[in-house]
């Protein structure tokens, strides 16, 4: 279970506080969605959960399965079962996808994954996600299209099998076919031991991945939560109306 209490986070480079007293709990087995206008701290939240060196926690705690994450290194968090599917996955020349994923699985697993087991699983997952064979020998994300990169994040998730997957705008820049594939991957992971935090602008991914809870973030806090219908309501009425309904005093970036 992920538990975030009274979280305050600043961006190191600018010293600007972006998250201002955020509370969030994601029990095992549940898929939660965070929606919110641009510049409201959604990506900051996901990167902070993973321990990005770009952000600092100034107050509050993040814990996972009862262990406090605040001062834990990123790779330790990953070995605890956390995973992040990035909005902009990094390109790394010189490291092959296949070698990278094997190294990642070995890092997270209790004992090394044999080459045979690894290749069998990779075959299965690539087939499941409709990823071309040539992909394995290509360098990590190098020269990948936006859709290929996102698909690669989902592939990694399915290979590593984390307990909590944070998916940061995994749906942006995807055409319908790719969106369906990505959603299929997420749904395939769903069970009692897997939970997910999906960050998105649009509810179109929610047509394929049914969330247990939808949260709305504004001004660095979760301002309201609800079920799937909250997302539909937002789609119809927009963030400004919701803000005014709730009587919150924040300025929307795109206003």
């Amino acid at each position, binding site marked *: 279970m992920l538990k975030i209490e009274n979280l305050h986070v600043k961006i190191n480079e600018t010293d600007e506080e972006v998250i201002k007293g955020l509370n969030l709990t994601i029990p095992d087995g549940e898929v939660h969605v965070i929606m919110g206008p641009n510049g409201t701290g959604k990506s900051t939240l996901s990167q902070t959960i993973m321990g990005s060196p770009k952000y600092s926690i100034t107050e509050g705690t993040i814990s996972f399965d009862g262990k406090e994450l605040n001062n834990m290194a990123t790779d330790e968090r990953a070995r605890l079962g956390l995973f992040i599917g990035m909005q902009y996955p990094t390109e790394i020349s010189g490291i092959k996808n296949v070698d*990278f994923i094997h190294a990642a699985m070995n890092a997270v697993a209790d004992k090394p994954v044999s080459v045979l087991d690894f290749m069998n699983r990779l075959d299965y997952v690539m087939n499941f996600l409709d990823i071309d064979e040539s992909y394995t020998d290509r360098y990590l994300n190098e020269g990948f299209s936006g859709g290929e990169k996102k698909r690669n994040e989902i592939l990694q998730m399915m290979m590593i099998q984390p307990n909590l997957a944070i998916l940061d705008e995994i749906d942006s820049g995807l055409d319908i076919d790719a969106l369906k594939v990505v959603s299929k991957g997420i749904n395939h992971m769903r069970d009692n031991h897997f939970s997910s935090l999906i960050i998105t602008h649009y509810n179109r991914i929610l047509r394929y991945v049914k969330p247990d809870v939808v949260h709305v973030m504004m001004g660095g806090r979760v301002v309201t939560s609800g079920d799937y219908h909250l997302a539909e309501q937002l789609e119809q009425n927009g963030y400004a109306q919701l803000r005014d309904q709730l009587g919150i005093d924040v300025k929307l970036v795109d206003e």
Partner: protein
Amino acid sequence: MSMSVQEFALSHNEPQWLTVKRIVANDMKNTMRVPAPLRKFHFESPELNPCSIDTQNLAPKNLQDLGIIMMDLFAAANEFPELIQENLMEKAIYWRDNALNANHLAYLQSGGFVFIPKDVCVDESIDISDLVDHNMQEKHLLIIAASGSEVSFTYKDSKQQPKNDRLMIEVLLGDHANVSFYDAAMTNSEKSHRVLNAYLAQNANLKTYVGLFNHGDSRYYSNIDLDGMGSSARINLVSLSDQNQNQVVQTKIINKSPNTSGLISQRGIVADKSKTVYDTTGQIKLEASDSDSDQISRLLTLSPESKGKIDPILLIDNHDVVAGHAASVGKVNPEQLYYLKTRGIDAKTARFLLTRGFLTPLIEKFPDKTVQEHLLNNLEERIHG
């Protein structure tokens, strides 16, 4: 007991023209310049001791059957004066160029000669490492690939090396000759000076692959002369320096004739308190229309105390050409490091993967798989430890 140049020459029955050439070089060396970056590599002349030499063709049987000659240089000077007299330190490396070259010729202790006859093609790489005595300071290799021949060579250093080490390699390519040269420069010498120069006739094609993974201070100089119309050269070099090492890599390709093409690709890792300098020149002479010259050099520094420097130079006298250069010196990319860590890979392993990944795209161009593994294993030993 040390001998004079003349006594040494007599001890292995060298031809007189060579002895005279050595004596002239010895007499003239003090009037010649010592290039500034090579000042510390102007070694004391080595002690000359009597040596007996093998006068046989040392090429493996299957290569001898093709007419290939691999011999001690001094023995070859007797047997093939017409091939050696006008080429030894006259074309690819010129003995009058500087005091180091002259002294090298005068005090040359061990040498090898390789001749590939016209139109001979060999598939597997020819190992020429044992043609020189690795324990000697002044060593030389003269390689002639006659017109239309197609070969590749491998040179590997042995573990035993003198305190000061100098190896000069000359490769001469006839018309349409196609040569690949792999040099695993992994000496343990305190100071190592290596020269790999080549001269190309018409439509000749040379590719060099250098793994400069030595341990001491080093100067690696490579000068490729595209003299023949339509000739082309590719220099591929990866380097690694650590501890207090100081490396200078100076590469130069000169386009002298029309339709010539030169490309220099270099990538290096600079660790600990070491320093690496890439001094890279592409020169296109006025006569060399329709030619191209390109260079890509990148250095990765692993610690705040490691220093990398690149001097890319293009000297263009003809305007009907394509020329370019790219150079970068940088640290491990923090975004990439973070990405690997988000997958559970610990910081040390992540750094190593990125360091190895930095060299991999260039190492993968090396044609020989065992060579690739040799380099990658060596890198892992020294960086991952």
